[in-house]
């Protein structure tokens, strides 16, 4: 059984490992078949990338992802807490709204944002991307953190209120410090979703605010087929993702399905 599992894992990972190896190969080596197991690894592809415009795009990706994450948390965490304590009607409708925002096809937001950004001159700006990334990340925060707050007993903040704390003080002094691990996992997932975006950046940026995923694709379209650089670019994009995903792997189900399953 275990052998079978190992074999299947290797098989499933082979395409991914191939790309990883490719990023260290020279062009001649890439076209060689059967491949040599021990080839002379080169960092030339990475070096070529780092001296090109790709470096700016990589920076853009970082800025946009971090900013969108921070904004989503600042706006979304209080909302998640408020919804968790919501006792009125309409809870189901709000849940549907948040889920649908998360699941909507990107083009549904891209068309109106594109039209509005043309007038606000936000096309091809980092600000424009940060705002549109809120459409999915804000929903994600609310939906990751709400079940978390559902589990915290109300008596916690009620005790604080009796001692004369305001609602906000109760939230910031009592509830927020208890949210640590959930917050960290949510922040990482927000970062990943923003970092992984391709569609919004493809439509809403041109040159100035271009993010790394779009920049890599441009290697395919405009500069001929430079497989080594494409592989190196892909590897650089996936590196932070792999590291962070490993850290939050226990929260992945939750983040992708919004607690449809408590796992």
């Amino acid at each position, binding site marked *: *059984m275990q052998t079978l*599992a*190992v074999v299947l*894992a290797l098989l*499933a*990972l*082979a*395409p*991914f490992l*191939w*790309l990883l190896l*490719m990023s260290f190969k020279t062009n001649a080596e*890439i*076209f060689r*078949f059967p*491949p040599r197991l021990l080839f002379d690894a080169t960092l030339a592809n990475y070096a070529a990338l780092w001296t090109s415009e790709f470096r700016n795009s990589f920076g853009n990706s970082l800025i946009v992802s971090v900013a969108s994450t921070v904004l989503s948390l600042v706006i*979304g965490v209080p*909302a998640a807490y*408020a919804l968790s304590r919501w006792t009125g009607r309409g809870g*189901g*409708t709000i849940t*549907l*709204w948040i889920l*649908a*925002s998360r*699941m909507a*096809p990107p*083009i*549904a*937001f891209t*068309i*109106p944002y594109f*039209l509005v950004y043309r007038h606000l001159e936000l096309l091809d700006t980092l600000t424009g991307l940060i*705002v*549109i990334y*809120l*459409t999915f990340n*804000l929903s994600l925060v*609310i939906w990751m953190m709400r079940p978390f707050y559902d589990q915290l007993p109300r008596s916690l903040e009620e005790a604080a209120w009796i001692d004369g704390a305001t609602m906000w003080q109760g939230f910031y002094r009592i509830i927020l410090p208890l949210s640590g691990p959930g917050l960290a996992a949510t922040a990482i997932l927000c970062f990943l979703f923003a970092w992984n975006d*391709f569609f919004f950046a493809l*439509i809403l940026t041109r040159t100035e605010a271009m993010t790394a*995923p779009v920049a*890599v*694709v441009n290697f395919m379209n405009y500069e001929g087929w430079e*497989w080594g650089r494409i*592989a190196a670019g*892909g590897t650089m*994009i*996936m590196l932070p*993702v*792999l590291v962070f*995903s490993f850290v939050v792997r226990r929260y*992945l*189900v939750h983040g*992708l*399905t919004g607690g*449809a*399953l*408590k*796992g």
Partner: protein
Amino acid sequence: MAPSLAVLALITLLPALYLLATSFTQLSLTRPETQWDFSQPLESYRQLLSDSRLHNSVWVQIKLSFWTVLLQLLIGLLLALLLNMRSRLIEALRTVFLIPMVLPPIVVAIIWKVIYTPDISPMHGIFRSVGWNVPALITDPNWALTSIIIADTWEWFPFTMLMVLAALQMMPQELLDAAKVDGASPWQLTRHITLPFIRGVLLVAGLFRLIDSIKAFPLIFILTDGGPGNLTEVTNYYSYLQAFNFSFLGFSSAITVALLAATIALSWLIVRLVGWGSRVD
């Protein structure tokens, strides 16, 4: 705390309304006067009914969704059953199997572009060395959609696997123990106890994948660009072409409204199934 919800409304509900309004115009970026021209509000929707390229895209979408969801559920389920044991090696493997799902979609697309490009593909290399003459799959009419389905299944089978594994860990052990005492075989255990227990999870996982399959974009954009012909042009992709290649934002909005409606309906189904909103504290 209402301000937070107001922000969410501002960035999601308002654009959705704007999209709906645009779908009642025939906005074309090459003709600025078409913006806010509501003189023929239903024209774009009438076009939906008569555009055969759109109808083709819906059919492609159905084929893509059906096969990817089915294969992902099947492979994910089998792997979860295989990996549902406590050992250090298996737990490490579980993490390894998650990699395709967490990779940036664009990287997944690049990986498969490499595999489907005969010059540099290890797969084609193997085919050649055993004497098979296999055409480039993504440009072959018989194989283009299948090659997208394979890549998409590879990317997302871990999702079902992860959800089923999580459900399996919540399974009451007493139930299994009791059946074992009664002499049930491993197959009977799986068939009569495990499968009924995870049926709900499979359904929810399938629905999530179904909604996501409507959004399929990077794979198609990188691998086939909708071709050859329109064989891999799903509705979402066609809508993208109409809006951002042909500049017909009005018509594209009408298509997108239909896609959005489908998304909301499926999301509603999930909310009902999971029982959110009817929580009893």
